[in-house]
Each structure stands twice: as C-alpha cells, then as structure tokens.
C-alpha cells in the first residue's frame, strides 16, 4: 500500500505562538480519515500546511512529492470560499475552478449539483449554511485528485444536508483517493471513518483504525475521543 501523505516533524508558529509542534503523520491511499480536535487545536492549519497555503518547518510529501508548489495539484481543498466576494454567483466560482484546475471534471460536477440540488445561479451571500457546504463539497469532489480535504463540513448544518453530504462522499470519492474530514463532533460521521487522527497539545495525539478502537476498547469513537480529553484533565 502506498502513502498519499507523509509529514515528518512539521511545526508551525503564528505570531510567536506554537500552533503545531513536531507533527508526524502518514496516510495510506483509499481511506476516509477523521481529523478530530477541539476548536483551535490546529486542524485547519494542518490542512493548510498540506496544501502549501501555510508554510511551516519540516517535510511534507503529498503522493511522494515534497515540492510545496506541486501540492495544490494533488490536493483538493476548498477553504470556505474565502477568496470570493459575497456577490459572486456560484456559476462564476465554478468557471473559476474549471479554468484554474485542469483536473476539474464538469460532468462529475453536474452529477453532484443534481444530487445535492444546488442552484448555481444563486449568489454566495444567498446560500444557507447547509447549501454553502454542499457547494463546497461539489467543487471539492469534482476535482480528480488523490487527496481530498474537507474542513468541518458538518458544523452547524441540518441533518438532511448532512446525510446528503455523507452520501455524496461515499458515492464520489474515488476508490484510490484518500479523504480527510475534520470535525470536533465525531458521532455523526463515525460509521464512515476508516481511521481517526486526533490533534491535541499541538501534535498528533492519536492515530487509530476506527474498528480497532471498537474492538480493542469496546467503546465508540466519540467515547474514545472524549476519554483522551478527560485523561488529559486528570493528569494536570
């Protein structure tokens, strides 16, 4: 089995404050990985380091490629559509994606738009929270890459949207691609995760197979995740 991601001793500071310190993380191809941690634990920073939008210390190889400039080619990450003004229509964003990413598959995007019932004539400012996440998922999955990153796609959205998003991940994630989904609340996605990576104390605190947690400890992913925090408290 080959690795889609290999991070070695990666550290990142912002304004003299250490966000991540000595991160080692290896991910195999074809997995769905839950990236868990409290708000501010550094989950988004980790994703930005992987794509190369944030620069830190240490080595990061995506598909064996350590050159940062190449990372965006291998990784599909739609960061909250921050770069676009609120007046932009969804279809303009789609055109931008089509132009910028040669791997953007228009056919796949149309399938996703139909499945998720997205109205591409709407302006970004007119999108509900759930609809905005759906647009992000459609844009992210329409690219044909080896690594997909989704940053808290389920925070603050209704359960119907959540179910649709989970289905679209299961339907459209290419078999040999790996997807990392960050969340601070795991139970809603626990059944679809191959493995979980827990970010805590500025590092990768745990990296385990989901079914191994259930088999070895007889507890759920949520309970395991919470136990790490409770354990941390009692040691203080």
């Amino acid at each position, binding site marked *: 089995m080959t690795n889609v991601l290999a991070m070695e001793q990666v550290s990142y500071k912002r304004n003299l404050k250490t966000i991540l310190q000595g991160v080692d993380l290896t991910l195999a191809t074809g997995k769905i990985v839950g990236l868990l941690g409290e708000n501010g634990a550094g989950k988004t920073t980790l994703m930005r380091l992987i794509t190369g939008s944030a620069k830190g210390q240490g080595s990061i190889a995506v598909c064996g490629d350590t050159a940062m400039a190449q990372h965006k080619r291998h990784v599909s990450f739609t960061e909250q559509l921050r770069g676009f003004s609120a007046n932009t229509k969804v279809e303009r964003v789609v055109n931008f994606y089509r132009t910028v990413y040669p791997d953007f598959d228009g056919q796949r995007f149309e399938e996703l738009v139909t499945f998720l019932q997205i109205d591409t004539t709407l302006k970004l400012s007119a999108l509900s929270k759930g609809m905005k996440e759906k647009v992000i998922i459609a844009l992210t999955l329409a690219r044909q890459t080896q690594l997909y990153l989704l940053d808290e796609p389920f925070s603050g959205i209704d359960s119907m949207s959540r179910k649709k998003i989970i289905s679209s991940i*299961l339907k459209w994630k290419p078999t040999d691609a790996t997807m990392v989904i960050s969340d601070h609340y795991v*139970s809603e996605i626990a059944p679809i995760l191959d493995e979980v990576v827990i970010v805590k104390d500025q590092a990768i605190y745990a990296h385990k197979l989901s*079914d191994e947690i259930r088999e070895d400890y007889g507890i*759920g992913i949520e309970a395991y995740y919470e136990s790490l925090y409770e354990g941390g408290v009692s040691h203080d």
Partner: protein
Amino acid sequence: MEFDDKVPIYYQIKTYLYHEMIIGQLAPGDKLPAVRQLAVDLTVNVNTVQRALGEMITEGIIESKRGKGNFVTMDEQRITHLKEQLVMEQLERVYEQLHALNLTDEEIIASLKRYIAQRGQQHD
C-alpha cells in the same frame, strides 16, 4: 441503517447481511448489490464493506465471481447452519443472564414457556 458505535462496523454489516439471508430477503444464488452501492445504502465506508464481504467469502456464505460480483451461496445447508448459529448466539445470551439470576435449567425452560404464553395472549 443505525449502527452501534461500540461494535466494529464490519461486524454489524455481516450481521445485517446474515439477517437478510436468513429471512430470505437475499435468497440463495442472489447477487449482492455492488460494494459501493452497499456502502451508500448502509452509509458506511467502501473499505469496511469490503472487509465484511471478504470475511463472508472466506466463510463460504457468499461467492465472488470474477467480473460478475458477489452471490449468496447456493448451498442452502450453509444458510440453515448460519441460522442455527445465530439462534444459539441469542439463546446463549438469554441463558447466561438467567443463569446469573440463579435460575436452574428447569426454571429457565418454565419461565420461557410462561413468557411465550403471555406474548401469545397479548397478540390475540
């Protein structure tokens, strides 16, 4: 389908498929849905479905035909055996719990009969 997060998902997928076979929803020789379709239907990971199916192939409950997909075994004895096995597993649980209450074998049988009789009346 609702999963119990404390039990390995691949195990729950197997239990679900066994159940479908025993009640005849999946008959001997039936083709199983494609792996990805099963994953979407059950809202689980493709790899987890593959692990469940892999174990069921090893057990001989399903047969994988190259390029055609996975099929429920034609060997009806295996299905009968599977049913027996699942029934025994359920009974084991009940038996152990009743035993833990210091019931003798005779008392267990008697209470089971009483329970079934009561259930019968409720449904009338």
